[in-house]
């Protein structure tokens, strides 16, 4: 049990710290690379949640494909620095933006408060054989069967979404908009 808690805090701290660096860093290139570190830590968390398939697609699809797309665009646009945190002459001015960021902190405080006050029973054990079908949960075969039976319609709709996104991206990035 001690190992689990240690792993959770290790991966959680890395994920949260890397995400903060994504948000606070000045260089978009560093932000993208820090986000990959955050994704790796999240993949570790998925493994502690007995979900190896989630960890694998986190690494292969998120860190491997989506982040490479981001890196490609950052390099293409040569966007190695951004304007000052709040640009001079911005139509809105700085105050609404800081207010929005403050509201985000309030959101986090509210969520944590609500969870602390949640009725008991939500804090059951996560692992350690508590669930009888933990083996079924881990198997990719079971996941595939679920995906192609109960979620078959959603799966097909997803393929249409991908086609629409692909066509949309090609049209948007064309020379003549």
């Amino acid at each position: 049990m001690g190992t689990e808690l240690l792993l959770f805090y290790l991966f959680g701290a890395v994920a949260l710290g890397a995400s903060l660096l994504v948000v606070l860093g000045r260089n978009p290139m560093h932000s993208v690379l820090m986000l990959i570190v955050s994704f790796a830590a999240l993949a570790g968390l998925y493994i502690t949640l007995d979900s190896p398939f989630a960890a694998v697609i986190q690494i292969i699809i998120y860190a491997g494909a989506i982040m490479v797309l981001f890196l490609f665009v950052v390099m293409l646009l040569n966007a190695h620095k951004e304007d000052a945190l709040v640009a001079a002459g911005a139509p809105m001015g700085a105050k609404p933006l800081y207010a929005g960021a403050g509201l985000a902190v309030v959101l986090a405080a509210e969520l944590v408060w609500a969870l602390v006050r949640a009725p008991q029973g939500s804090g059951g054990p996560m692992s350690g054989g508590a669930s009888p079908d933990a083996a079924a949960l881990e198997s990719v075969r079971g996941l595939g069967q679920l995906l192609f039976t109960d979620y078959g319609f959603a799966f097909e709709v997803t393929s249409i979404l991908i086609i629409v996104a692909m066509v949309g991206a090609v049209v948007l990035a064309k020379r003549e908009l």
Partner: protein
Amino acid sequence: MVTLDHYVMLSALLFATGTIGVFLRRSVITMLLSIEVMLNAVNLAFVAFGRSIGSADGQVMMFFVVTVAAAEAAVGLALVIALFRHRETLNPDMFTSLKW
């Protein structure tokens, strides 16, 4: 012992981090990255809840969210490239007109 609360609180903190990024950053690319952070916070909550009730549905939802994130990144980055071509800047405050 690691409980569901641990994972959900981490998810809440990650989501708030992403929200702060969307508000504070002045680069369209970094705002998109912050949205990715928020999507990942939701993914973590999905998988943790699914594990908690002993069902694989959470992982299936996470799979769909990843797919939507991929589509969002493709279209969003195409928009960023189109905007940059017209304005030579990535600052969202400079994109104030719907038509030019």
